[in-house]
């Protein structure tokens, strides 16, 4: 009798353990390199910054769609309790969401409830000097690790289950003005990152680290050194402080084993004197071999830039039949389509007000007007320094075959402020301030037909916004605005179907995932992360 009773208890206990171990498996399945390649097969998850290697920020989930979007309700919120801009895009992996907050916070949350599983914050040195807020845009994941780039230019691997640091490497001495704000990109066994610092006269680079050990596998300097092709595009020693940071996550074409990265402005940002030449590879699209970091080809958008027109917008891969393209709505106001096999420009056409260029070279690349350069008294140029768009993600919807981008209509007065380079100090060589137009600055979500470059529809924002855009198979696009609204629109028409007032400006790009058969949409605003679903 007694032994039977013990047997029962043992059986119950074993069953319980088995059940719980199954649960553990569900929540702890390894994210393999293959799963990243096949991310389209698991739309319930969001495995990388842009959702897929193509950088489309598109989800095949369709539970939330044009017929029911008006019924969306908030499900949970997570507060970082931190000030400043909250720019993260969550990863969603098998019931857990991973994100980052201001000042290099990182967290893992129960995707169902928003309750924290672990929270991490890096002890940052007091003298870091990120140019534009103590921000971070998200994590990458491989195996049982998530990867974080930090404001003091480290890359850290955190244990995905505990948040404990597994390895921590220094990419470069941050005191030279370097920082990392982007979400890394994992390709195969490598963690690929780039640096920020175009306002400090850094020499930009893109690095690859072994995901297991943190060992550096390659470095590609975005400003070529002596003897390298492109070095001749810099005047005398200016290459050493040439900028060209790479601060937005790239994309990856496994068919040709090519990773695409974009670069920012040459330094100093708004003063061309002293760096005569095209200043390669600033403001460029780079096609790199992810195994070696070797450059396959490059395409430079705005040459010898003097208006801070970083080309650090996600280079979105789109296939049209036999055409394999990169599409980018660029900060300089042009929508560029580039053949991603050859690196040749297909066309460039404005998607916002542009005055810095009024002609093109024989290849169709816009050329800067001579009189658009900043002057001591100030020179009004469109777009302004924050650009016609910026780092906020666009989206490409394969259903509507439209490219959606947040456009900003703001012109600035650019004036020079000559200054000597000093390591780690601000190195703008310029100032800019809003022009004195009577009309207020505005913005819009614009749907671009990539075949023609024409704008099919736009949703006007009362002021310029920093929200990215998500598209879904439900026929929807989601975006936010500077007034704090998170909005669902019909992808085909631009009609607003639903909105929620988050209480602070949206400075992030939304994403979506599924949990317990329920689709969620998530966005960061203020210091909180919000999720929405059907009731």
């Amino acid at each position, binding site marked *: 009798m007694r032994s039977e009773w013990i047997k029962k208890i043992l059986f119950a206990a074993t069953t319980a353990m088995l059940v719980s171990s199954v649960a553990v498996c569900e929540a702890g399945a390894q994210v393999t390199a293959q799963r990243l390649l096949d991310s389209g097969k698991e739309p319930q998850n969001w495995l990388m910054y842009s959702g897929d290697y193509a950088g489309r920020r598109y989800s095949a989930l369709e539970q939330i769609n044009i017929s029911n979007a008006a019924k969306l309700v908030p499900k949970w919120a997570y507060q970082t309790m931190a000030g400043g801009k909250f720019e993260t895009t969550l990863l969603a992996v098998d019931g857990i969401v991973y994100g980052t907050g201001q000042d290099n916070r990182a967290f893992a949350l129960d995707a169902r409830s928003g309750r924290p599983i*672990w929270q991490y914050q890096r002890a940052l040195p007091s003298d870091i000097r990120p140019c*534009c807020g103590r921000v971070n845009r998200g994590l990458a994941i491989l195996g049982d690790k998530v990867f974080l780039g930090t404001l003091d230019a480290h890359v850290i691997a955190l244990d995905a289950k505990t948040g404990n640091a597994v390895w921590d490497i220094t990419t470069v001495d941050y005191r030279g003005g370097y920082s990392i704000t982007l979400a890394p990109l994992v390709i195969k066994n490598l963690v690929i990152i780039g640096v920020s610092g175009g306002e400090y006269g850094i020499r930009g680079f893109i690095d690859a680290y072994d995901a297991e050990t943190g060992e550096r596998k390659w470095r590609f300097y975005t400003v070529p050194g002596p003897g390298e092709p492109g070095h001749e595009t810099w005047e005398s020693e200016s290459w050493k402080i040439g900028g060209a940071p790479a601060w937005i996550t790239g994309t990856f074409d496994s068919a040709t084993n090519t990773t695409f990265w974009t670069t920012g402005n040459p330094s100093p940002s708004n003063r061309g004197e002293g760096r005569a030449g095209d200043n390669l590879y600033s403001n460029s699209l780079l096609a790199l071999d992810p195994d070696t970091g070797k450059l396959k080809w490059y395409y430079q958008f705005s040459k010898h830039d003097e208006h801070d027109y970083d080309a650090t917008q996600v280079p979105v891969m789109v296939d049209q039949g036999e055409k394999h393209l990169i599409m980018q709505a660029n900060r300089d106001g042009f929508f560029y389509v580039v053949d991603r096999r050859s690196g040749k420009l297909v066309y460039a056409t404005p998607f916002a007000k542009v005055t810095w260029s009024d002609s093109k070279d024989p290849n169709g690349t816009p050329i800067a007007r001579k009189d658009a350069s900043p002057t001591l008294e100030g020179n009004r140029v469109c777009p302004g320094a924050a650009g016609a768009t910026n780092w906020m993600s666009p989206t490409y919807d394969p259903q509507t075959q439209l490219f959606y981008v947040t456009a900003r209509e703001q012109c600035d007065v650019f*004036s020079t402020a000559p200054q000597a380079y000093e390591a780690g*100090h*601000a190195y703008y060589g310029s100032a800019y301030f809003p022009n004195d137009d009577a009309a207020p600055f505005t913005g819009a979500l614009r749907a671009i037909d990539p075949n023609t470059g024409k704008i099919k529809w736009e949703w006007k924002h009362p*002021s310029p916004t920093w929200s990215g855009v998500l598209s879904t198979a439900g026929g929807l696009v989601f975006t936010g605005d500077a007034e704090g609204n998170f909005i669902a629109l019909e992808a085909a028409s631009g009609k607003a179907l639903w909105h929620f007032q988050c209480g602070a400006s949206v400075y992030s790009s939304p994403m979506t995932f599924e949990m317990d058969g329920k689709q969620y949409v998530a966005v960061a605003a203020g210091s909180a992360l919000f999720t929405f679903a059907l009731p």
Partner: protein
Amino acid sequence: MFTARTDFRPGRVWSRRWNLCFLCACGVLAACGAAAIILRAQDKNPFVGDAKAAKLGESQFRANCAFCHGLGARGGGRGPDLTRAQKRHGNADGDLYRTINEGVPGTAMPPNGATQQGVGMTEEEIWQVIAYIRSVQAKAPAQIMGNAAHGKELFYGNAACSTCHMIQGKGGRLGPDLSTTSSARSTDYLVESVRNPSRRLAQGISEAMKEFSQEYETVTVVTADGTKLMGVVLNEDNFTLQMMDTREELHLLQKDKLQSYEKIRGSLMPPYDQKMLSDKDLQDLMAYLLAVGAQ
């Protein structure tokens, strides 16, 4: 930093790390405290009269401050004229350092490095900026031209400014409170705001402050029941409108429920030309605003 930590309960898996962070935070705070003491001790600009430092400061000023204070530090639609001898938030070098480094709570002046515009300045660079400001500022407080007492009579009397504007708690609510405006804006800007109020409306400071940038645009709506309202926009987004009508009544409206909605990028205030307000009277009015602002 401290308050952000109080919501972490001890005994959790991560508590040890948070305790460590807590200790780190204490360390950082202690270091900050020490730094504050050092800065407090250093109330004197090491670059007094140093023309070279002032020149470097000018570049820093253009990159970090000109956005609001204008290229020559003469002020603009967003920030005070810093060439005036008298600074509202303290005149001593140490005061200027504190104002630049810590910002001014309750105003649009952000702490150093938090402008989303410049990249933040080192201690040395702040002192250089102060050297620059000293190099361009007037040697003595400007003699207030005009008769402030008469200006006050005009404000509350014939010029009828107080119908819409308030000074030190007295007056109307439809337009901006003018109690401190003269210290926050250049005199040229104030004169223009009287002569041609629609030329430049009050400006939002930057996008970070956008939620609070009241620009006093004129709005006319017809509500669902046919009521016509005219007034100023207090705030709005794509879906809602918060306005004050000319009788100082608040209206909180949903745009999709309105019969009509029209917003003009112009002021409800009439332009005060020479006939309505002579140059002499305008000078007296400015004298009053300057006198009030200096208090």
